[in-house]
Structure formats: C-alpha cells, structure tokens
C-alpha cells in the first residue's frame, strides 16, 4: 500500500467514526447526557481554549500534565530499562527483584493513592512517582524480555572481542533489546497518560486529569469528553513520535 493511500485511510477512519457519532447524537436515540453531541463537546473544548477551565488556562492545564507525564516517563523508563537489562543478565539481581518486582506490578494505582499520600504527600512528587512507577514496571518487563532474546552467538562474539560486562550491556544487550524496549515505551506512554487522571486524584488544581475529574464531579459530560479527547490526542501524537523514532533507531529490524 502506498504511503499516500495509507494516510488517506488513517484520516478517513476517525472521520467516519465522527460522522457516526454525529448521526447517533442527532437521531435522538441516545439522550445527550449519555452521549453528548460532537458539537457540544467541541464548544466545551473551544470555551476551555478561550476561557480556560476553573480559572486556569487550557495551556496551563496541558503543560502541567505534560510536565508530570514527561518527567515520570523519562525517569521511569530510564530506570526500568536499566533494571530490566540488569535482571536479564544477572541472575542474582533477577532473583532479588523477582518477588518485590512482580508483586508490585499488579498493584492498582488506585490502591496505592492513599499510601502515596501518606508517604509522599499530595504534591508533584506523589503524582510523578505514581506515574513513574507504572512506567518503570512496564519498562522493566519489556527490557528484560528484550534482553533475553539476544542471540547467544552475539554475546559470545562480544566476549571474544574482550567486551567488559558494561560494554556488553551498552553495545550488545541494549541494542538487541531495543525492539522490545521501543514497544515497551509505547505501552508505557499510553499507561502514563492513562494514570494521569488517577494521579491527579492526588490533589492539585491543574492538569488535564484534574479537568476530567472535576468535570465528572459536576456531571459536565461535554467537558469530560473534551478532556478525554485532549488526552487521547496527546497520546496519539506522542505514540506516533515514538513509533517514528523506533523505526529510525531500530533500522535493522526485520531486515534479515
């Protein structure tokens, strides 16, 4: 399929969904409280863009969320990759981290919120740690699996070239794990954004998560939709960015 028709289809598909949404909400089959019309959502979006929400401008909300997610994502993934690769190559490290790591993963962010409030307060620290923890855990699993798939011969080749443990990490294990790491980054980014709302349960008066929660509290469904769509759009753009980077960085993938 040509690039052009790919893009056409990719643009067409959300437009069709939008059309469906318009049709359904105008048919009168569904009450607006259940499914507000796209126009209503759009006008809430516009009003947010022009007048802000709850006294804070839209750009500030977006910026607050992006900062949180950005810091948590960067920190969480750097640490996750390091620990995951370490676990893959050192069975002592793997054994030590096995039970704490794997028990931590299924623990619900919502269940952690009270604890995070208790331990880290309700400021930025708590929010960033909550998001960062999820990112960390996902990246740990993905990097570890990625590192496990390194062909044995490549490790052997590196050893006969006199590579130290660190050099093997840096030059062999890390690049070989990159395809799975990039996948992990995409999953983790979606996760980070989706935990944003939960994290903004941890107090604060700005951020897209705050907007969604606050609007939900007042049953302002159009604003909930608007906030959710904004989060989705940020996700889409950043996902494409990572996917594009992945294709450039992991240029050798599938080329054999």
């Amino acid at each position: 399929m040509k690039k052009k028709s790919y893009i056409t289809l990719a643009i067409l598909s959300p437009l069709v969904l939008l059309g469906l949404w318009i049709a359904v909400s105008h048919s009168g089959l569904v009450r607006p409280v259940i499914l507000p019309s796209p126009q209503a959502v759009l006008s809430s979006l516009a009003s947010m863009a022009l007048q802000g929400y709850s006294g804070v401008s839209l750009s500030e909300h977006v910026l607050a969320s992006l900062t949180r997610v950005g810091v948590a994502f960067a920190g969480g993934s750097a640490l996750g990759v390091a620990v995951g690769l370490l676990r893959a190559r050192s069975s002592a490290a793997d054994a030590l981290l096995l039970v704490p790591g794997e028990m931590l993963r299924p623990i619900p962010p919502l269940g952690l919120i009270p604890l995070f409030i208790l331990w880290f307060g309700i400021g930025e620290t708590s929010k960033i740690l909550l998001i960062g923890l999820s990112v960390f855990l996902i990246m740990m699993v993905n990097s570890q699996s990625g590192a496990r798939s390194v062909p044995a011969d490549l490790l052997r080749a590196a050893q006969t070239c006199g590579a130290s443990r660190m050099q093997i990490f840096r030059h062999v294990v890390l690049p070989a794990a990159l395809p799975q790491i990039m996948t992990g980054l995409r999953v983790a980014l979606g996760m980070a954004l989706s935990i944003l709302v939960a994290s903004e349960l941890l107090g604060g008066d700005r951020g897209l998560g705050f907007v969604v929660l606050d609007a939900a509290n007042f049953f302002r469904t159009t604003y909930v939709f608007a906030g959710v769509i904004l989060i989705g759009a940020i996700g889409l753009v950043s996902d494409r960015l990572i996917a594009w980077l992945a294709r450039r960085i992991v240029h050798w993938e599938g080329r054999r």
Partner: protein
Amino acid sequence: MILAETPAATSAGRRPQRLARPALRFDSVGLSYDGRPVLADISFSMQRGELISVLGPSGCGKTTMLNIAAGFLRPTSGVALVNDREIVGPGPDRGVVFQSYALFDWMTVAQNIIFSLTCAGRPEAERRETASRMAELVGLAGFESAYPYQLSGGMRQRCGLARVLAANPSVMLMDEPFAAVDVQTRETLQEEILRIRRQTQCSVMFITHSIDEAVFLSDRVFLMRKGQLGRFDEFRIDLPEPRESAENRLHPSYLAVREEIYRAMREDGH
C-alpha cells in the same frame, strides 16, 4: 595417518617453538547435548604458531569442538586448556570467526570490525586506521559505513573475519570462514592468514570442508569421521616457507597429502 595421540606425542611441532606450553590443549574432552554424546575422549594439543585444520562430515562435531576451545561450551568430561589455563569461558585471547557470522546488526561494517578496539578503548585514530586497513584486506573497502543487512552473504562473512583479524588474538578459531566466499577471494585470504600467522605467531584452528584449503594452510589436518564421537585421523603437512607462496599448491608433497586425505575420506564413505 596417525590416530589421535596423547598431548605429549604432539608436542614436537614442525614450527620452531617459542614456548614449551601448548597454545591449546584438549585432555579427554567429552561433550553431550541433553545427554546425547557428540564428542568423547578427545585429546590433542596445538603449539603456539601452529595452524590446524579440521575436516569432517557435516554434523560430526567440528563446531562443537571449536565452541569448547572458545569457551562457549563447557566439556561434559575432561578438560580444555588455553596457554595451560583451564578454559572457563570466552576471552579476548581467543578470536572466533563464527559459522553464523554473528555480526552486530546495529553497527556499521567499520564498527563491527573495530569492536575489540572500541572495547579496549583504543584511540579514535588507530580505530579509523584499522577499520580501513581491515576493510581493504577483506575486500570491503567502500562498505565501511554499510550495515550488515546491506551486505551479501560473502561480504558478511568477510566482515566477521575482519573483526577477528583486527583484534589480533593469540589464538584464532575459524569456523568455515570462507564458505560463502568466491575462489579468488578465498585464495587471497588464505595467503593473508598465512602471512599474518607468520608475522604474529598466532595459533589457528581452522574448520573447512575443502581439502585443498586444509592442506594449503595447515601444519596438521584433523579428519573427523562420521558417528565416531569426534575421533579423528591426523595428517602432517610439510611445505616450504613461505607457506603462502602460490607454488605450494603444486608442490608434490601438497598433492600427496591431498590424495591421502581424499582416499581416507572415500574409505570412510563406505
């Protein structure tokens, strides 16, 4: 034609010896994969500066033997030694040309070639010089910045060879290093290896399916047999120096050994 001998019996090599201790020694080495034995009771030793070729039918255990020497596999019984120390793992004293090439897909040809220099923290200038010298040597000049997946099969194999030559280890273990290379290039590279061996006194274990190649290159040829768990016949080759001179390919003693090995192989076939 002598059956696998004790290390002591082998120690009187053809080549003048600098050190009494062998570069590589197998002592009653046995290896099983998941309980299925592939090698049993293999003993030999290789002197410093010696070049030994290993011939044998596909699947007889050549790569397995080389993997033990490289430290990739631990023998199930017996012991393998390099420079009189037990081999417990891979090390930069033993360079390996892999049957599967084992190139790093994410590195360019040049980066692959100089990987050992990078690991040793050699200066940029030296790395650059080595990369282009080695690329030139194996016929990859102009492809220094290509990635392995942009190379032909034979070019990949030569890249793997260049990586080992650049590392300049004291023992080289080469697993069918010219299998995917054309005759012309092959002959050039054979001569190159003999030249390097003479200059650096490195020891080489060389796996091949070509009798000509084995005889031209080697001080000794090990001929493994099918289903014999790695037992091998040994052939000594004596050819005038410089070994790499093309005339040796027509030397009577070359032709004689070649014939002898060929007959031993035929025999085995029945």
